[in-house]
């Protein structure tokens, strides 16, 4: 016979203001199988939890229903309290009479009736609850970090420095990401490469980090603590074990006029190339699509020039299988294609460039060795117009959000321009100056006050070419009049957008993404670095636009999450998993296909002589996530979900 304890929480006034808790306690006290029915102001408080424990011991309760807030809040609290009082924690359930009752109803009378129904229904469920035991799964203590930009490198270093193994995967030929492309960084104006490259070297030489560059994650299987990951090692056509990075092949390659991705199209590169001088690893790859040999079957100049015979045109993509315990996704961002702004002439006029291209012009390692020169004729521009929010905060171009970094880097660009081209005049069209951050507002003030950046509040409507000048027409909304500026160069502060393949990649890894393609965190405020999939964490601009300090902070945060996971040898998991009744299973194996976690296997039932009598489905408890997809699919009702069995659900429904 069940003896269920019902504990009705007032939640201060949150519940009690609408629900007559005294009446609820009286009615439930008379419900069959209820051994105790009490109310209290805050059951989640220490004395509240004590009273639950005492009631369990004194009344020998067989189950507990706490009628309170959402189980998301305090289910764990009360299950723990029950366990401390000697009751199996899975005999405790929460009846949500706050979010689903008192908060959403005006009429107290009806809310009270509804609360009674909700609790009664849960009492009927608990009567049929089973004493479940948590599942222990082993944890593979090896992390996978996807993306070798600053966020990925930071996460990898933090994890590796704590003594755990890391595999760092980067799809480009070199580590570095976008930060390696930048000139100076705000708000301190230290050289980006000077602070970035030591981190790259450290990551590549760290004994605990296995670096896989020019590699892509193809497939992720498994679950927290036990992921199975397939990585494609793209063919470099250069044996990176024997290559010393002497660069002979690069100097000899006849194909010299390819647009350099690293220099955002402003610089040129060869077909066999390293993206930049400090690349890690500093070993070239062959761009198969543009290599003369791959196109025409003739050339092989690089083969002849290589003193160590490292070049192998027969090389094929290889696959590596990894066993991984936790994954940090740090795949970064891209800049929006400014061609969406036809009126600004990007792509039409050579001297209309985006912010990242300006970084390459200003960078000491860039195609102009840090001189600000116009791409069209190589002359020093006397007047530059910067257009902020070229993409951001413009729903009509598909980017509703603020890219967060553009106000700062535009101020930086104006400063760098003032420092490098004395007497150069800059005009910055802006909507607002958003400079929240340590030293940020001071930085933009410095641009205005010391480096004489001319800020014009207003949007630009059109850019066109006239007499060798770029004419910029906009509005000065503070003066309330139209302005026209004749400029030598226009720099668009382009929006940060997700990687073009972010949505597909999210499906490969098994995480959620928002309407744009930025990856979703589990909770925007309280779990900002965890994805909704257990064991997968997020770092950097793949989650939302971020600057370097934010990316690094998030990377360290996700590293600490990984290390917390790796602190134990085994992981305890909720025993809410599917269980198959092999006696009634028809072996159609629809569930095997339907299961999104590949947790259901085919199983032969043999007789003593080893003959197959029957073939059925069998759930792997380590892999099952308890989503219930198989339960809804199973036509013969053979699969059931522990903790949410059909019997329990049916009783709950009938209890209403």
């Amino acid at each position, binding site marked *: 016979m069940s003896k269920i304890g019902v504990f009705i929480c007032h939640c201060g006034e949150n519940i009690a203001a609408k629900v007559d808790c005294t009446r609820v306690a009286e009615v439930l006290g008379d419900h069959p199988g209820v051994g105790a029915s009490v109310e209290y102001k805050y059951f989640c408080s220490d004395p509240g939890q004590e009273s639950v424990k005492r009631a369990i011991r004194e009344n020998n309760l067989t189950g507990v229903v706490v009628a309170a807030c959402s189980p998301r809040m305090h289910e764990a609290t009360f299950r723990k309290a029950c366990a401390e009082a000697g009751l199996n924690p899975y005999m405790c359930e929460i009846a949500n009479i706050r979010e689903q009752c008192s908060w959403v109803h005006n009429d107290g009378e009806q809310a009270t009736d509804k609360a009674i129904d909700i609790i009664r229904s849960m009492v009927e469920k608990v009567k049929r609850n089973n004493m479940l035991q948590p599942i222990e799964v082993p944890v593979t203590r090896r992390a996978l970090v996807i993306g070798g930009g600053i966020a990925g490198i930071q996460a990898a270093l933090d994890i590796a420095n704590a003594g755990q193994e890391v595999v760092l995967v980067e799809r480009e030929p070199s580590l570095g990401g976008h930060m390696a492309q930048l000139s100076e960084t705000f708000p301190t104006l230290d050289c980006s490469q000077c602070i970035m490259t030591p981190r790259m070297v450290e990551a590549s030489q760290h004994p605990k980090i296995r670096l896989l560059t020019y590699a892509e994650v193809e497939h992720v299987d498994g679950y927290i603590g036990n992921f199975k990951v397939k990585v494609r090692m793209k063919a470099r056509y250069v044996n990176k074990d024997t290559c010393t990075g002497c660069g002979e092949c690069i100097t000899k390659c006849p194909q010299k006029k390819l647009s350099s991705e690293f220099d955002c199209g402003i610089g040129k590169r060869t077909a066999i190339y390293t993206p930049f001088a400090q690349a890690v690893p500093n070993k070239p790859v062959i761009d198969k699509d543009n290599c003369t040999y791959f196109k025409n079957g003739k050339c092989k100049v690089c083969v002849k020039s290589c003193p160590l015979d490292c070049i192998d045109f027969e090389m094929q993509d290889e696959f590596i299988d990894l066993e991984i315990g936790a994954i940090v996704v740090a795949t970064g961002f891209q800049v929006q294609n400014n061609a969406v702004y036809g009126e600004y002439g990007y792509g039409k006029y050579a001297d209309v460039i985006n912010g990242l291209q300006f970084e390459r012009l200003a960078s000491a390692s860039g195609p102009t060795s840090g001189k600000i020169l116009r791409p069209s004729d190589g002359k020093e521009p006397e007047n530059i117009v910067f257009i902020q929010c070229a993409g951001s905060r413009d729903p009509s171009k598909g980017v509703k959000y603020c890219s967060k970094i553009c106000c700062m880097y535009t101020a930086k660009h104006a400063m760098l321009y003032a420092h490098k081209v004395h007497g150069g005049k800059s005009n910055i069209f802006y909507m607002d100056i958003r400079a929240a951050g340590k030293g940020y507002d001071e930085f933009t003030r410095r641009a205005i006050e010391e480096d004489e950046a001319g800020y014009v509040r207003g949007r630009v409507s059109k850019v066109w070419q006239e007499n060798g000048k770029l004419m910029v027409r906009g509005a000065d909304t503070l003066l309330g009049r139209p302005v026209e500026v004749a400029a030598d160069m226009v720099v668009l502060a382009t929006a940060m957008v997700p990687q073009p393949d972010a949505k597909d990649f999210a*499906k490969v890894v098994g995480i959620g993404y928002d309407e744009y393609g930025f990856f979703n965190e589990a909770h925007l405020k309280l779990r900002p670095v965890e994805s909704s999939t257990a064991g997968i964490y997020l770092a950097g601009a793949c989650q939302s636009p971020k600057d370097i300090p934010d990316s690094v902070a998030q990377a360290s945060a996700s590293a600490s999450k990984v290390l917390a996971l790796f602190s134990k040898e085994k992981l305890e998991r909720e025993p809410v998993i599917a269980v198959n009744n092999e*006696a*009634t*299973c*028809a*072996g*159609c*194996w*629809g*569930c095997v*296909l*339907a299961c999104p976690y590949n947790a259901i296997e085919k199983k032969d039932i043999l007789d003593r002589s080893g003959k*197959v009598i029957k*073939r059925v489905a069998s759930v792997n408890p380590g892999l099952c996530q308890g989503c219930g997809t198989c339960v809804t*699919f199973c*036509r*013969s*009702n*053979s699969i059931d979900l522990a903790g949410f069995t*059909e*019997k329990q*659900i*049916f*009783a709950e429904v009938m209890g209403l």
Partner: protein
Amino acid sequence: MSIEQQYRTRAKELLSSGEVKMVIGYSKGSTPDRRRPAFISTPEDVETLVLDGACIANLSGYLVTEGLLSDEKRVAVFLRPEGIRAINILAAEFQLNAAQVEILGFNTEGNEPTALSGSKVDDFAELIGTLKGIIPDTAGEELYKKLEAMSPQERFDFWQSEFSKCIKCYACRQACPMCYCRRCIVDNNQPQWVNTSSHTLGNFEWNIVRAFHLSGRCVECGNCDRACPVNIPLRLINRKMAGEVLEAFDHFAGSSQTQEPVMASFKKDDTETFIL
């Protein structure tokens, strides 16, 4: 030689050579217009086989009789195109090994059966391809059109009055080759989701559950329709579901033995019109 004689000879050969251990076909029934399934294991008995315009039942369901195919031996069976599609589904759902099935294929046009060439299920792939989207048996076509023209309320009333006749004999389930479960959901009484008594709610629950369980699997052989003792036009519910599945997922049940069950598989480009 008549097609009947031709197939008798073929059946005899198969049995005499030991190629198959049994031939499942049709024999005379209790009335001139009815045929009864025949299970023939000796060459002498093939003379009782009948093949004419009255041979319309889908015999594929007998193949999944517990233990029939577990000795790895082969069985020959008379099948119309719907029956051949049913073999594909049963194979796709791992209920039988299609290599164990020798098909004696035929079609019935008008009142005369015609032979279909091929003996393995894959031999009929081309034929099945041409059938996609075509209703195999036009029985009830007029009523179906009438139902489609109705408002949801009228349609609901129609089915309510039809289902009110249901006596829960489950003959439709017994006749259906796709109802191979060892324990049907209605036989599960812990909990009793589907009410067993013959009142409106229970009748609705049963018939709707069956329609859902058959969506993307029904080949419209009409076995259920013919088995129903109270003449509920059951095939029309399944026809509706087959149309929906074809339209939404381009899924034609029984196209091949590797076809993934539509309700258990998903593709990235599946339509999501049902997500509001």
